[in-house]
């Protein structure tokens, strides 16, 4: 028997579907475009793909409300008419939905300047298993009335409620963009150079790790004059660190960033996100290189160099993935960080665990989950806070 798929067209429909399934005790999976996680097995699938009704953009307020099922690119196409955008660049943005991006708190290289969804979200509407909808926050940037459920939903992986729409603060589109590409001989030095650039008088929108080859992609999005001045400063710093430097703009720049994304997120495979202190990035990069070379596993790296976020994609041979994940997680945790498996074959996730330990906050996370979804019907088995 296949799971029943429900595709509500509005929040009320989503709530009704949730309520009906929950009252029958049916397990429910929530699914957007499916660009990230594989939804767990369930009796009912609630797809957000028909929640696409209209983007409400108020350019003068620098805010917009977007439906959960709209792709990020579709939303940004609307916002760009007023020279604004929702400054998020997670992978597969042509398909990734607003709901899915919120549910996974997903972001990309430009998190360096603009933050993650939880930093940009200012309001939310959700549908709950009790069959009702609820909202929190609002449409103003500054607002401390009531609990901020919109942040709670960011990264909750659809385990608490179904996001039906979200409101964000926006940014103006910069008039000009160019990227400094610094190539280094040693992977460790990427971490050092990222730190040096982050403390320099420049305001890049991304300081992005790439390996192999060992490169730092430093993007400047500002006026043309300011980009030129900051590029000159960045060039000097890169050169002082022994890097060879080139500068790209226009189509070459667009292509380079697209290629950068697809190195990690081209198709299904094992992708791990490590969060660490910025000063530990160099050591983590060395460890990744040591472990993957030792096990003869192909590996591609990206990440937010100055923020302490390292992404890696492991290739053949998958038999060694579990060991590498465990070792990296052990090292990251020892350094007060974490390693989360973003995607991997089921057997690897089962063996290594997706999230690692929740620490002493696990019980209170489970208490929150139990209040929102007392019968554990929503995306069951997906998270350790279930």
């Amino acid at each position: 028997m296949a799971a029943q798929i429900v595709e509500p067209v509005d929040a009320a429909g989503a709530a009704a579907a949730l309520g009906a399934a929950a009252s029958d005790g049916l397990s429910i999976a929530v699914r957007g475009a499916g660009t990230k996680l594989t939804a767990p097995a369930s009796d009912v699938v609630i797809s957000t793909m028909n929640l696409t009704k209209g983007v409400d953009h108020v350019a003068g307020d620098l805010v917009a409300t977007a439906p959960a099922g709209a792709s990020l690119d579709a939303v940004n196409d609307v916002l760009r008419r007023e020279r604004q955008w929702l400054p998020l660049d997670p992978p597969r943005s042509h398909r990734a939905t607003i709901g899915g991006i919120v549910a996974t708190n997903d972001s990309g290289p430009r998190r360096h300047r603009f933050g993650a969804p939880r930093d940009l979200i200012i309001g939310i509407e959700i549908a709950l298993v009790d069959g009702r909808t609820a909202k929190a926050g609002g449409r103003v940037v500054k607002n401390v009335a009531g609990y901020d459920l919109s942040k709670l939903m960011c990264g909750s992986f659809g385990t608490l409620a179904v996001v039906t729409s979200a409101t964000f603060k926006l940014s103006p589109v910069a008039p000009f963009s160019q990227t400094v590409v610094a190539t280094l001989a040693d992977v460790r030095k990427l971490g050092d150079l990222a730190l040096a650039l982050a403390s320099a008088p420049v305001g890049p929108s991304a300081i992005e790790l790439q390996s192999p080859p060992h490169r730092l992609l430093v993007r400047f999005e500002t006026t043309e004059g300011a980009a030129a001045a900051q590029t000159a400063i960045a060039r000097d710093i890169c050169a002082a660190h022994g890097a060879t430097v080139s500068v790209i703009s226009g189509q070459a720049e667009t292509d380079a960033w697209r290629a950068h994304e697809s190195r990690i997120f081209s198709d299904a495979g094992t992708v791990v996100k490590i969060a660490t202190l910025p000063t530990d990035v160099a050591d983590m990069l060395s460890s990744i290189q040591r472990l993957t070379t030792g096990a003869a596993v192909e590996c591609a790296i990206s990440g937010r160099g100055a923020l302490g976020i390292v992404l890696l994609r492991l290739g053949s041979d998958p038999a060694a993935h579990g060991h590498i994940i465990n070792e990296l997680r052990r090292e990251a945790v020892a350094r007060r960080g974490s390693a989360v498996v973003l995607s991997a074959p089921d057997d690897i996730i089962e063996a290594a665990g997706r999230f690692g330990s929740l620490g002493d906050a696990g019980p209170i996370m489970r208490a929150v989950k139990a209040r929102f979804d007392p019968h554990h019907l929503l995306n069951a088995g997906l998270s350790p806070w279930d």
Partner: protein
Amino acid sequence: MNQSFLTELARLVGPDGLIGDASDLLTYESDALVHLRSTPGAVVLPTSTEQVQAVVRLCRREGVPFVARGHGTGLSGGALPIKDGVLIGLSRMNRILEIDIPNLRAVVEPGVTNLEITKRVAPFGCYYAPDPSSQVVCSIGGNIAENSGGAHCLKYGFTVHHVLGVDAVLPDGELVHIGGAVLDTPGLDLLGVLVGSEGTLAIVTKAIVRLLRRPEKVMTLLAGFESIDAAGEAVSAIIASGIVPAAVEMMDRLTIEAAEAAVHPNFPKTDAVLIVELDGPASEVDELFAVVEALCRKCGAVTIEIARDQAQRDRIWKGRKAAFAAMGRVSPNYYVQDGVVPRTKLPEVLRRIRDLEARSGLRIGNVFHAGDGNLHPLICYDEAIPGQAEHAEKVASEILTYCIEAGGAITGEHGVGVDKKSYMPKMFGEHDLDTMQLVRCAFDPTGICNPGKVFPTPRLCGEVPGPYRAHPVERAGLAERF
């Protein structure tokens, strides 16, 4: 409060950490919302997380409600004590525990003042970004409870964007670590909901905060306009040009006069002044500042002063930050309102406030964060005149309805506390509030952690239904459905 309970408290925090004397308790009977007062049964001043845990455990065991308090600068009664409850004052937990400049982190106790962090890291070229007007005295613990903002949050965000992790004592006395030193910690973003929960979910005993490097260049401009509308147009023009200033502040004639009388910032004697600040790399600031200046002139600025140095910038900001307190120079009493409107609705709402001023017979000063639509109308009254205080409160209340009708919020930074909880149903539906209560009940099922705040009507939590049904993963075969 019975003697054995007090004795037990004294044992936990030491005799000098307990205040039980009736006259000493008066100090703690309100926060900065002074017209609401309530005398707690006891005040404890713990010096460690362990002491906070012990006190909370005792309260839990005895079913005694407790309220955490920072430095008592809150403006919504969030730290208003519960009669016969325990007030947990965190002012003695005031150490900066760690400063990590390379990673731009500091670890602080909740009683550290906001500005103290910046002072300590200034020699390294760093600062802590949220800058509420009370930053000289307000505590980080209080900032976390209220999700404090300040003048620079248009560009830099609020406390929630600058706190990475906390040690929190839950209402059952358990200590949990939420968030952490790194950006992403696995699990639910409890930090996002804890910050701004007004002390109703837990007591924060330690926080890891993010530091920023001082921008290479800061430029500040003070522009005088003949009307609030003209100043508002300038703000719209700046935003429309694609510039996100570090701060955009507006003051009207009455608040300009008050500030002038109090701290002599030498503001122009116009109907409105705009303070616009840009910061960032010099190359960018230089270029964009010229645009800002031109837009101000185009929108009718009659005076423009550009701060040449830090001293001049400080003088301008002193005039702005003193605006609240300065109202005392022009009025015996004043009521500070805090509401938010979408920025594009500012002119319309300000006109309604002007009409209200004429109708009410009370002078209303307006000082606000124009970039993000956060209004702080100051309603002047004289409490010596019978009924005028109540009248002022009604006027303040009407302004909030304007904010709600404009699609805004009932508070932008002062919090709901006790003061505004009756407005919550005007902004949120019953189910919205019920859903927020789910979080409350997960953290505080017995309702002893700062009860009676934020939400209009107390609700019992009840038990979580269970046991839950068979886990899908446990049901073999279902995995093949996809």
